[in-house]
């Protein structure tokens, strides 16, 4: 089954080189990718995740505000009934990884992660989520 992924930019962070490129690369890998555009609120992202019935949500955060924003998105999604796993790509200091995992982030992708690793992780998360 084709994986449906929502990639999202949350908050004030306008860096979109990564999100533009990953959108195309995931499409190359055969996934259906929906991109929210910049400056989305956690509530809008949650609503889109539900409306589009996506399998996975990928947040791109390069501003350093991941500890604040990722949990807000996850809470908003769960409140609307979306149980889709949430992954975060961007610049995340090692010491923040535990806090993100604790907040429900299923995986993180730092700079230089290979596309193969990203695809494998997303496929594994989809399989796990279905069981």
């Amino acid at each position, binding site marked *: 089954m084709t994986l449906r992924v929502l990639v999202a930019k949350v*908050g*004030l*962070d*306008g*860096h*979109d*080189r990564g999100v*533009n*490129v990953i959108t*195309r*690369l995931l499409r190359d890998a055969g996934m259906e990718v929906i*991109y*929210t*555009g*910049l400056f989305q609120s956690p509530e809008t992202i949650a609503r889109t995740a539900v409306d589009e019935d996506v399998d996975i949500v990928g947040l791109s955060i390069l*501003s*350093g*505000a991941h*500890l*604040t*924003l990722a949990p807000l998105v996850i809470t908003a999604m769960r409140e609307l009934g979306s149980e889709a796993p949430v992954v975060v790509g961007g*610049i995340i*200091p*090692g*010491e*923040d*990884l535990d806090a993100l995992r604790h907040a429900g982030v299923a995986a993180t992708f*730092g*700079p*230089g992660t*290979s*596309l193969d690793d990203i695809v494998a992780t997303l496929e594994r998360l989809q399989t796990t989520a279905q069981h």
Partner: protein
Amino acid sequence: MNHRTGRSKWEDAYSESPAAQSHGATQSGVSIDPVYGPDDAEYPGFFPYTRGIHPAMYRSKLWTMRMFAGFGTAPETNQRFHEIIAAGGTGISTAYDMPTLLGIDSDDPRALGEVGRCGVAIDTIDDVADLYDGIDLGAITTSMTINAPAAALFAMFVANAEARGVHRSRVGGTLQNDILKEYQAQHEYVFPPRPSLRLVRDTMVFATREMPRWHPVSISGYHIREAGSTAAQEVAFTLANGFAYVELARRGGLAVDSFAPKLSFFFNAHIDFFEEVAKYRSARRIWATWMRDFYGAHDERSWQLRFHAQTAGVSLTAQQPDNNHARTAIEALAAVLGGAQSLHTNSFDEAWTLPSSEAARVALRTQQVIAYETNVTQVADPLGGSWFVESLTDQLQSEAGQLLEELLEIGAGSMLEGCLTAIDNGWFEGHITDAAYAHERAVQRGERIIVGVNAFTDDSPTPSPPNQIGDGGEALQLQRLRRVRHERNSDAVHHTLERLSAEAHDAEVNLMPALMEASLARATVGEIMSTLADVFGRYHVSPR
């Protein structure tokens, strides 16, 4: 293309430069000329400035070592500025946090988690006063990396300098204020393009008339390149924006030679060494030619492309981060051999955080090693005459020239209209994203090697250094802002914002006086920007 200055003309100019008495020699005592070339070659200091804008280049004046800094609250960043100056930095440059860059206050709900994180939080003129505390604004030049709210921050800056007894005519520095590249690459916009350009026009007119030491726009290719463009696209899009500002200022009633000498540029210093050197050379040549022949500038200073360079943030890796020292040194050397007037070197830790004090000091020391140990400053354009570099310069000129012609055609003869249309229809972003995608595919396939990432990897774990920024001082900044809101005269704030709104409706009025009045009444950046947004509207773009 051959522009024959002739060596004798250059010798005359050189003999009048401050460097005329200097004697260059290698470490072993071999004597070095200030420039090399056959008698009939092009020489530095002469049109079209391929070889540099001064006859003596670094023999007469080294580049400014301008280190970019900003985090937390204004007093914290002020302390870093003092450290930079004490370490021998010769200019300061402010990085603002995301809320400030987008014109919202620290206590706005959208600012949650972002206050003081990517730069310093500035809400009111009180923060500006703390930011520059103890720094002589009549002596050291400052650079402000801000765009959408540039006019508001500039007004606060000038009002603060004057409140401390430094008249605006004595203040020197640079306002980035390049809104076009925000729509093309960096995405820190607030208003739609046309009203944003009105603010750029107002700051240009104000600075041209009242602030002879100020550079009101720093036309920035850096962010276009960081977003993924090629070197030729960086040159073309940046110069196109520069020409658009020339047309804008002329529409504002300024004669080209009254403001063009105050325009400055900001380019990336990337890792492809010779291409970068050729890039700066081709950019100078195109700018000079177009300014003289297309825009009719007569003053030589209007033809001269002055630029600041910053080493490439995107070239740094979180893996094996010590390798970043080597990358930054090589990139900085390219900027110097390419004739930069000012340079920021990135710290090795910037792949994951804002730089620590120690890392910023090593980055500055890297420039000092190049400036004082390597002897490369003795000769202007030392790579000029290399068949490879000359050919690469011509090729980049030709590629960038084609893109510029295309934009001019899109704008039916106006570069300003060409840029606006190409922003509207996604032309710029399409080009940039295609190039970024091609780069990433090449990395993923191993066709482009990045040491420590897709080659020469080792088992050493990627270090997880501490987050240098902490919580960004959010609580402290909220307290500072609350105090100002409590202390100020809210009637006066209201009154000045009403004036701002009324004047914003009339496109002929220059908004700088109203902005300075609102700043002095201690209106916040967010209040000023929402007042303007009520008149100008807000810019939204849907993903393509």
